């Protein structure tokens, strides 16, 4: 916004003053929003860190158990044992509004609520290690679901914070100084015009008086 493009009139001055007021208020609001988003974001990040560590540890353990199971059983048997799941998961998703960011909230229901019912095979032909692996996996899965929710929330919040931060900075370092500069320019210009008019009037008055009365100074 180069100051040369604005016309120094009272109307423009009033407009600019209005805009400056709005910009200041917007800046304050956005700053508050950014701070609050940041606070929530830090909570989410902390939770995410915990969950990720837990999930990674749990999954590594579960995969290790599965590995042992597959070493004991023949591949065909293992395949067959896991071929038809008895359990099925129904995932529900809702959106929660956090500081005008829509973050997902997952809820899941399993068809069989009894934890002992997850094994889709008879116990006679499979090894106990497989049972352990599956039980472990089922435990980890609940954490995984929460991890998904927390991680998505984190990503969405990060995006929103980035946007808000940019807006705050644009207002603070570009919009507001520009407006202030333009307002100053107009006020100066108007004062200058006023002075010019005053001087001109004085001069005219002097000339008129001289004409009428032939005053000599």
């Amino acid at each position, binding site marked *: 916004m180069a100051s040369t493009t604005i016309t120094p009139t009272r109307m423009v001055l009033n407009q600019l003053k209005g805009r400056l007021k709005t910009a200041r208020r917007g800046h304050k609001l956005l700053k508050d929003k950014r701070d609050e988003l*940041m606070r929530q*974001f830090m909570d989410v*990040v902390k939770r*995410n*860190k915990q969950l*990720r560590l837990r*999930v*990674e540890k749990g*999954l*590594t353990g*579960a*995969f290790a158990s*599965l*590995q042992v199971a597959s070493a004991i059983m023949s591949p065909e048997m*293992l395949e067959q044992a*896991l071929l038809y*799941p*008895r*359990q*099925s*998961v129904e*995932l529900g*998703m809702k*959106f929660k509004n956090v500081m005008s960011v*829509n*973050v*997902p909230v*997952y809820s899941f229901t*399993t*068809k069989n609520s009894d934890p002992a019912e*997850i*094994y*889709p095979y008879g116990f006679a032909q499979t090894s106990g290690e497989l049972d352990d*692996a*599956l039980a472990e*996996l*089922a435990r980890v*899965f609940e954490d*995984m*679901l929460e*991890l*998904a*929710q927390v*991680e*998505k929330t*984190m*990503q*969405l*919040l*990060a*995006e929103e*914070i*980035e946007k808000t*931060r940019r807006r705050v900075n644009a207002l603070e370092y570009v919009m507001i100084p520009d407006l202030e500069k333009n307002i100053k320019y107009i006020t100066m210009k108007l004062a200058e015009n006023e002075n010019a008019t005053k001087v001109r009037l004085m001069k005219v008055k002097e000339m008129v008086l001289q004409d009428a009365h032939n005053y000599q100074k």
Partner: protein
Amino acid sequence: MGFKALGLETCPAANAQEAREALRRLTRESEDYAILYIEEGLAQQLSAEIDKYKDSPTPAIILIPGREGSIGLGQSALKAAVERAVGTNILGD
């Protein structure tokens, strides 16, 4: 493999190409899938595709460690998000 027993849907993919196709297929029906879990090893080669879904509410693509254990990709995603929001890494690692 074990996840299938828990009632999750699994899409086995042997290499990056297969994984990419599976990912595309699943995200096209993104109304139906809210969360996708993908092994870190495969995700490494699909990062461009995965980043596309970072800012949309669905689906959530979550990296999990594969059979070989964690290679720290999930952690780095966390770090990247913090860096994006704060502008610098404030977690101190």
